[in-house]
């Protein structure tokens, strides 16, 4: 290595000085003035004094054979010297030299967090709500189909086409009869398509384009056809208000933003996953109670007491109280007790109930996924 840092006898300390004005390497003699607590640099065109307390090591240097020094009083100039032992004399050598104002960082950080929050929680939802009204039925249907395929893929662990659909002949007919009775007096923006997934989860949900999806677990847990009808009516409420469409559009917008924020390094993927879970969570409390109110009317029209919705909530809460992993959005709602109460109150005095399905239809519906296990 052709070192420009000279090694000379101890008594004559030498160094190379760069004044940050020209590229000239200026040879300097170093005088340690312990009395005045300063390091004097003298060369042909250099006469500089650095106070000991101003001298800093330039950090993270790869070279271990010498020192690269700077002074807080003249942050641009550099002194290179081979005399490592000099460092002991500079008490503040490891302190850093501040470059950027902290106040501006704080301002930018606040502005960034605020505008991302504004985009994720206000702008994107508002736009999604508006756009959901203008999406044509075919488009909405396609969005729902795509989402259903995604969900089947995510739930079915290793099979090619994802989780199996239940298509038992008699069961499908029974479900169609139920759907016809319920939607007889209701105007929905899109016709309803019922799908049953072969999965043990006690859950049901609506997807864009009029998809209402039941999981096998819910059908098995239900005791009477009225309970299934109550869930169905509730989901029809979501279809009527296009909640799923808005939801799908909203997540299309906000997921990318969160990925952006956390970067890709190790932490990124996990934090992203957790945050998505939070955003995905549920429809708003308002959307849920709207769907409930919608369900009361549909149920009453079909001759089912609206309190069936409340008893269903109670039953599912009781049967699944111990089991984890049941994430039906009915159960996680904080004001479940209020909703049960509201369903009771929505049932008029002296309501005359009519059976919605015959016993034969009911057992066909329960067996839609094949022989019960």
């Amino acid at each position, binding site marked *: *290595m052709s070192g*420009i*840092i000279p090694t000379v006898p101890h008594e004559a300390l030498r160094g*190379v000085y760069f*004044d*940050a*004005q*020209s*590229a*000239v390497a200026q040879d300097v003699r170093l005088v340690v003035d312990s009395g005045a607590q300063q390091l004097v640099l003298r060369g042909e065109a250099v006469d500089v004094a650095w106070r000991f307390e101003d001298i800093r090591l*330039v*950090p*993270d*240097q*790869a*070279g271990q054979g010498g020192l*690269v020094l700077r002074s807080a009083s003249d942050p641009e100039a550099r002194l*290179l010297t081979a005399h490592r032992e000099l460092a002991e004399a500079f008490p503040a050598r490891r302190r850093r030299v501040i*470059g*950027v104002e*902290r106040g*501006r*960082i704080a301002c*930018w*950080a606040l*502005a*960034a967090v605020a*505008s991302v929050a504004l*985009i*994720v929680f206000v702008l*994107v939802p508002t*736009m*999604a709500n508006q*756009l959901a009204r203008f*999406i*044509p039925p*075919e*488009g*909405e249907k*396609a*969005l729902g189909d795509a989402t259903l395929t995604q969900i089947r893929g995510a739930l079915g*662990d290793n099979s090619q086409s994802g989780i199996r659909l239940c298509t038992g002949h008699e069961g499908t007919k029974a479900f169609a009869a139920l759907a016809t009775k319920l939607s007889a007096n209701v105007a929905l923006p899109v016709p309803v398509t019922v799908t049953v997934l072969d999965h*043990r989860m006690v859950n049901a949900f609506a997807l864009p384009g009029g998809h209402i999806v039941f999981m096998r677990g819910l059908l098995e847990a239900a005791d009477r056809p009225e309970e299934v009808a109550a869930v169905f009516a509730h989901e029809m409420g979501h279809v009527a208000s296009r909640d799923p469409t808005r939801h799908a559009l*909203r997540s*299309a*917008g*906000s997921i*990318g*933003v969160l990925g*952006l*924020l*956390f*970067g890709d*390094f*190790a*932490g*990124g993927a*996990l934090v992203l996953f957790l945050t998505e879970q939070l955003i995905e969570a549920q429809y708003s409390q308002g959307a849920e109670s709207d769907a409930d109110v919608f369900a009361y009317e549909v149920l009453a029209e079909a001759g089912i007491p609206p309190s069936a919705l409340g008893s269903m909530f109670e039953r599912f809460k009781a049967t699944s109280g111990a*089991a*984890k992993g049941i994430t039906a959005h009915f159960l996680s709602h904080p004001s479940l007790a209020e909703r049960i109460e509201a369903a009771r109150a929505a049932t008029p005095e002296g309501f005359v109930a009519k059976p919605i399905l015959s016993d034969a239809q009911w057992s066909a519906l329960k067996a839609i996924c094949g022989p019960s296990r």
Partner: protein
Amino acid sequence: MSELPEAGPWHRRDTDAIPTRYRHANPEPLDGDFVGDRGRVFGLAVRTGILTVLTLGIYRFWMKTRLRRFYWSAVRFGGVPAEYLGDPLEKLLGFLFAVVILAFYIGVVNLVLMFLSFSLFQDNFAAYLLSFVGVVPLWFYARYRARRYVLARTRWRGIRFGLEPGAWGYAWRAIGYWFLTIISAGLLWPLMTFQLEKYRTNRTWYGDCQLTQEGRWTLLFPALRHVLLAVLIAVGSVFVGLNGTPLAFGVTALCVPWFAYGLAYYRAKSFERLTNGKRAGDVVFLSKPRPMRVFGIYGFGLALSGFVASFFLVPLGLALVAVLGAMLGFEDEAAMSFDLMTSGSLTVIGILSYFTFFLSWAALTHTFVTLPLWAHFTETLTVVDPGSLEAIRQRPRDEFDEAEGFAEALDVGAGI
């Protein structure tokens, strides 16, 4: 580099890229030297990597700054180290700035694209495609801006480097040349390499001295020869093999490592020829990297890093198997006893193993790929004629608040 003391630097070059009019009578070359050692870069990468994980990624701006300081200070010409002066907080600031702009773009534009795509085509493919296409110019833009920031924070002999503004011009050119490269099946790759390098070099300054890139793009064409030959022979041998000579597939298999060598060869040779065609006033350079060495560093470094880092994935795999097994057996009542404790500790094992995999991969590639490559390219580079280097004066500081925020947010790999 001093095995030919009598011959003078001009006899050591094997290219005529340096115009003879810049020759001096008795130039005193400044040899390149790299003083960083593997142990220290490994330690630095591990320590800063752990801090990055613990701070959910915030420390990555400090990590990047510290690693760059280390690499820059390891590069010496004529014994004088370079210096990196970037400030981590300024990087954080730039990142936040970019996040504000990009959050709007990604949130709103993706939403509208998704809506239009489903409304018009009943499919989301168009949305993904347009969303990707929309990011491409931004990606090149970010690369140029990142380079501008890094050069503005690099000094040697106390003098700053600088890059003139011109990121959009760069982005359009990059897209154009990429397009040409793709439709010419890679034959015009040297054209892209040369023109983009020329665009950047001609806007680069060292102090008050502007750099220039000389030569023509055809200069790089020979650098592509191993890539081209490997592809041609591979295609030919597949053709012969399909026509009843299965032995020919053996030749195809040999073309794979040959192609990899071709890429390393192109990297080394294009660097050599471009560097030898660069000039800063009357300062000229001589680069002589060895393609085989570059190939060896990539091959050995990547294989070793991948092999060692993958050990850390084993616990993650086991945890996944255990969780899956428990979930599949969930329908049996007995499996309900798969309690929260077990699943919690399995999750912790999984997360730890995931992190250690990334950490060790990053630290090992620094140690066995990035650092040896830097060392090789630096040690084989000489400022063959410093010319009137000493007459160069300082340039004003480029404040550039945005730093490399866009590159960081879009995850554009801007070196280290």
